């Protein structure tokens, strides 16, 4: 297996909401992402997936725990090394209408980081590189786009500009936060395919944050999917395995709730009912497993009192659930 690129070790992030009142948006998340790997983070709103992404990209400081980039703790990095980490990890934001400066042309937007970080020596070189980047994200013919302003482009095209901008500094890791959720359905896939192509070509690792499990399965076909619930990572598994044979009760419930684009199948789909519809508040998290008040497979005291650790099995998947761990005790990784 390739080398670890980003390692999260017991990563947590708290936010103060009032004097002396804190919420833990991300709690004790550990995950290793390897070079060239695709990992999707899925979960409902407020589960901490965006906060995790922002911490990885260096936009938020963790409250506790560590992030390793190429084996180095990023909080200890300074000067040149910090800059290299920040350049190496780039972010594509959700809203392409808000993430591009409306008064700059596409050329300005993409050439700014090139010039700022001295990737190009002069205007001719900048122009050449911008053309190259636009071609890479399939915005062709390039001449149609160079001098346009963001408002003249469609959402999908803008998001491609965002991707091109992220690529200016030759990153090794891209955090894409809901990068296609605001793009028309008919062109989402082509945007994802562009990302996949770039990943192949440049050996990029991608953390793709989404709430759409079907999309996660498509994008991380060869990679892994992590499911978050109330700030915790509750299951990690190879994408297809996660969707076809989910282990954690929360993942099972989610998958059983998603409608299918086939009336025959979706109307006869086996549902798993929750014990309660109410999502607990981050201010008052349940004790033990945070999912236990809603969990259809709740097993009593253990679930109520002890927080389950995310534990890896020999097949490479990991689950934070007492009953599952008990059942599969023989397969636990040493």
């Amino acid at each position, binding site marked *: 297996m390739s080398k670890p690129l980003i390692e999260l070790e017991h990563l947590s992030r708290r936010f103060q909401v009032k004097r002396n009142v804190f919420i833990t948006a991300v709690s004790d998340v550990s995950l290793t992402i390897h070079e060239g790997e695709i990992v999707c983070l899925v979960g409902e709103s407020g589960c901490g997936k965006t906060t995790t992404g922002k911490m990885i990209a260096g936009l938020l400081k963790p409250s506790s725990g560590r992030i390793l980039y190429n084996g180095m703790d990023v909080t200890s990095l300074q000067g040149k090394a910090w800059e290299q980490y920040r350049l190496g990890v780039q972010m594509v934001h959700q809203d392409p209408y808000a993430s591009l400066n409306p008064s700059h042309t596409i050329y300005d937007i993409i050439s700014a980081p090139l010039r700022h970080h001295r990737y190009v020596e002069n205007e001719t070189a900048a122009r050449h590189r911008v053309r190259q980047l636009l071609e890479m994200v399939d915005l062709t013919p390039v001449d149609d786009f160079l001098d346009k302003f963001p408002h003249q482009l469609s959402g999908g095209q803008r998001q491609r500009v965002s991707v091109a901008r992220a690529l200016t500094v030759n990153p090794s890791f891209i955090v894409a936060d809901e990068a296609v959720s605001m793009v028309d359905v008919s062109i989402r896939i082509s945007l994802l395919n562009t990302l996949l192509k770039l990943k192949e070509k440049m050996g990029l690792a991608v953390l793709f944050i989404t709430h759409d499990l079907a999309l996660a399965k498509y994008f991380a076909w060869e990679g892994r999917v992590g499911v978050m619930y109330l700030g915790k990572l509750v299951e990690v598994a190879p994408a297809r395995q996660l969707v076809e044979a989910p282990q954690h009760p929360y993942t099972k419930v989610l998958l059983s709730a*998603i409608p*299918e684009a086939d009336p*025959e199948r979706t109307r006869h789909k086996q549902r798993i009912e929750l014990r309660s519809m109410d999502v607990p508040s981050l201010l008052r998290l349940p004790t033990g497993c945070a999912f236990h008040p809603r969990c259809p497979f709740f097993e009593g005291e253990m679930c109520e009192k002890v927080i389950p650790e995310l534990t890896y099995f020999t097949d490479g998947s990991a689950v934070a659930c007492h009953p599952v761990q008990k059942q599969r005790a023989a397969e636990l990784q040493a």
Partner: protein
Amino acid sequence: MSADTLSIRNLTIEYQAKRGAVQAVRNLNLDVRRSEALALIGESGSGKTTIGLGIVRLLVSTAKITSGEMIFRRFDKTGQVIKEFDVLKLSPGEMRAFRWKDCAMVFQAALNAFNPVLKISAQFADTARAHGYLQGEALRKRACELFDLVRLDPERVWNSYPHELSGGMRQRVLIALGLLLDPPMLILDEPTTALDILTQRNIMDVLKDLRDKLRFSLIFISHDLSLAAELADRVATVYAGRIVELGNVYDTFQNPQHPYTIGLMSAVPTLTTHRDNVSSIPGSPPDLIDLPTGCKFHPRCPLAIEKCVCEEPTLSPTTGPEHLAACWRWPEAKQTLMPNPK
């Protein structure tokens, strides 16, 4: 066959913009049957929301209904038509009575639809007062019945402010509010967009339940194909302001005829599709100010021929009298474009 609740004929709606007229709805014909759930699916900018807003005539001031008629029919308990009128010819006063009493609409983005400084009870009272409906204790009782139907805790919701409720709860309150006057028709605009998966499921179950109990006609507007698969009786695919395919939900999903519908279905990955069966529709949605000639889908259509460029097809029967598509090449479409299941 009994008469339909709503018959839209040749409806054209344009928005005035600097560059010219945005042709959001073009010569639309559509019948909404009694007690049916009709899904309008399509991408953003296809005109589906404009159709909904056009029916309740809540379009922004830059929009103009340039032609068409919308015949709405009221029925008595035995199913006899008791009144028939053109919604577009109603006076402002009659229109106010028509909205909510005959046809209610639940908008996208449930938070913005409430007045943030009024309790839910006050918002119900407002609506009731405007329509000369129940007040006081009787109104509270009626509202609580509706809250029960949409699976909300009546006591809690009645005395809450909108911000005290979660997105899913607000959406359900809005549905309850929409049904307050027991309208025979309800329009829902993107009822589950921006909601979490489990909340979406809950809304879908609530809607199914309501339809079984109250038997109103439901038009719902969505870009989410699976929502249509789950809830609809019939599905209408909207593209560039027109319906390009209309059929029974099973026919449409198992046997789509229009290249755009087929494209849309293969562009949306589902939990069970194989990666290789997913493909994007080439090109981008059309510019509604400067529409292509002929069939509006031809620049993106893999089957387009000369005729498609010159002449726009109308909605016509395909495999059966109830399954319509507006495509010159429908006989070849499914065979050529549908991926072989893997």
